[in-house]
């Protein structure tokens, strides 16, 4: 497993996407997207439903293989150097991506073990994460019997188990009430500056609150890229999301 480079140690990872393309049959989900994320940055990926955000995330995690172009994490390929990249990465997908049959502690134990933690390290990581996300009192509960908010919290918690320098979260507050959203955002805000966070969302308020820089995707193309206040501070930031309106970064 490659070690994080010295410049990223303790600050997160660098991400570089170069002319990234992904097709599904005749449909082009991502069309030559190029962007970079600096270490320690919280980077917002915005766009309407179907814009290509999840596809980009999947290419970044290595779940999908690009049709053309490349994406790199600290210079490593998520396909060819999968283990090294995944050692650096914590990924929190949407709520349904958990195992409802398991208890909370059991699910976190599995996630820690799957990331290579064993023995005391694993147990310590699980307990630390339970405490961090205030999940101790539901640790023995079946995940499937928890409320949506708690399930989301569990899903986010497993991404933090191995203290990764890169955190990828996809729609972390989708379907939550305001209080629950605040809890999740607090966790993400705490990570700011200490690790690279790629936040995939279509909630502009969330992006304004958390992201240093944002990119906006529309119909698979990158239509805006820059500091959050620049991109979303325009008179009509929703114009970026409407089909047919082109804007350059």
């Amino acid at each position: 497993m490659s070690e994080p480079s010295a410049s990223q140690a303790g600050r997160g990872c660098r991400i570089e996407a170069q002319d990234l393309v992904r097709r599904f049959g005749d449909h082009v989900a991502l069309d030559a997207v190029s962007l970079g994320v600096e270490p320690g940055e919280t980077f917002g990926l915005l766009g309407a439903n179907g814009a290509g955000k999840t596809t980009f995330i999947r290419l970044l995690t290595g779940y999908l293989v690009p049709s053309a172009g490349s994406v790199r994490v600290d210079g490593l390929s998520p396909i060819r150097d999968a283990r090294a990249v995944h050692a650096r990465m914590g990924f929190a997908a949407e709520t349904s991506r958990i195992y409802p049959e398991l208890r909370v502690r059991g699910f976190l134990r599995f996630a820690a073990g799957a990331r290579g933690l064993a023995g005391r390290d694993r147990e310590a990581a699980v307990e630390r994460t339970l405490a961090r996300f205030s999940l101790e009192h539901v640790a023995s509960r079946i995940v499937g019997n928890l409320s949506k908010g708690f399930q989301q919290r569990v899903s986010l918690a497993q991404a933090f188990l191995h203290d990764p320098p890169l955190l990828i979260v996809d729609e972390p507050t989708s379907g939550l009430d305001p209080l629950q959203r605040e809890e999740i955002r607090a966790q993400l805000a705490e990570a700011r500056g200490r690790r690279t966070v790629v936040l995939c969302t279509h909630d502009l308020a969330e992006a304004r609150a958390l992201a240093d820089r944002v990119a906006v995707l529309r119909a698979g193309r990158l239509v805006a890229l820059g500091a959050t206040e620049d991109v979303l501070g325009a008179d009509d930031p929703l114009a970026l999301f409407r089909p047919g309106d082109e804007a350059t970064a």
Partner: protein
Amino acid sequence: MRGLALAGAIAIVFGLGSNYATGELGIFGRVNLLAGGTALIVAAVMALRRSRGFGTPVARGLLLRRGAILLLLVLASIGLERATARAGLRFDWTLDQRHALSPAVIELLGELPDDLTATLFYDAEDPRVRGTRVLMESFRGTGEMAVGERVLDEAASEADRFGITSSNSVVLESEGRYELVGRPSEGSIWEALERLRQRDRREVVYYTRGAGEGDLRRSDELGYSGLAEALATEGYQVRDLVLPATQAIPDDAAALLVIAPERGLRPESLASLQRYLEGGGGLLAFLEPGKSSGLAELLEVWGFDSPDAVVVDPAAGPVEGGAPGVHPLAHSYGDHPITRVLNANRMTFFLQTRPVEAARKPRPEDRLRAIVYSSPRAWLSTDLEAIARGQVPRDRDTATTGRFALVSTGAYPRGERGEREGRIVAFGDSGLASNAYLRALYNLDLVMNAVAWVAQRPESTLTRRPNMLTEIQHPLTPQQTLVMFYGAGLLLPELLLIAAGLAWIRRRTG
């Protein structure tokens, strides 16, 4: 496309399901298979036309690597399977090694012509065919026999030609001759192969009569016709010899059988036997408790002691209705060519036997040896009356316990026949060679090896003969059946259902 593939798969399931359910592929099955196969092919073509996502170098590389591994796995599996099939690698885990061909069969197959074939004729529903197929595979695996199968319905003319009247019959053919085996087993096929071979019958085995000895012409349970057949199968000529009318044992006698004479042998007969043995002859003597014919006294001259008593071996349970232990099951054997193929798992059965101890050597160069023993817990009883009535002998308390010899041998290197040496095998019981018990357990191997040794055949012929299988036919008792049913059949599922309920509750409330 997916719907088409799913429909195609369901059609195939129902098409083949009807085949398995009814035993034949009728119209319903054929239509479903045709429709299902067509649907799957169309779905596959549609999927291929839509699969354009594999054009990138990374994708191609990934698919090529996985595809190569897959191909390698398929080829390796096929190659290894073929190699192990050609090598005939298999393990016989049956209790009685029923699938391992005996050395006698393997040797015989090597001597038969290369055109030897075996054809199994059968009805499809016959449950016995499976076992016979496995047996034929064992023969095929030797490489000495070509094996085939024919369904009787489709082979009427051949069935007529060979005289086949029932399913599960095997026809052996070689050099234009054939033998039909109606109840195939290793033993019956071996005997048929021997008949095909037409072994030159050189050695002559004589059996005495005239003093009430066991009769090799008699075919009921008390007779010894089975022994005569076994001798003929193994290439001996069997002739009788009326001892009282005989001045001398014929010179061509390879072996002489004296089977438990009922009446006393005349002095002239005993003198003939003595001269025969002094001249280097071979004798198989079968004694019996309670019979005093002079045979035991003759054997005493040659170094054997056989008191008129019964060996009672408590290690053997009650058999054939007698008192416990009066019919020993022997599984201890001395090191001798006769018993080299026998061991603790290959027992021999004796029906009331005298001890026959190799007591002393008439001359220093003589070699006497006990070859079959009772267990160390056996004792000798002279209460023959009680034993004859099926009762427990009354002299247990005064008897000495120990290991007793049930069969002994003697080799006497002298005689006037050149390099031949006189040989004796003395059995304490004649019942083990009778029609009722010759083919029980490994009695046949013991008796026939004794004949071969006495007749001074090559040691390689002292072998283990094909299994004469006896299937377990006795039922399980109702109590045994019920205990098993309640235990494994009901209790276990009950516990599992309780576990299922607990898991469900846990899921709902955990």
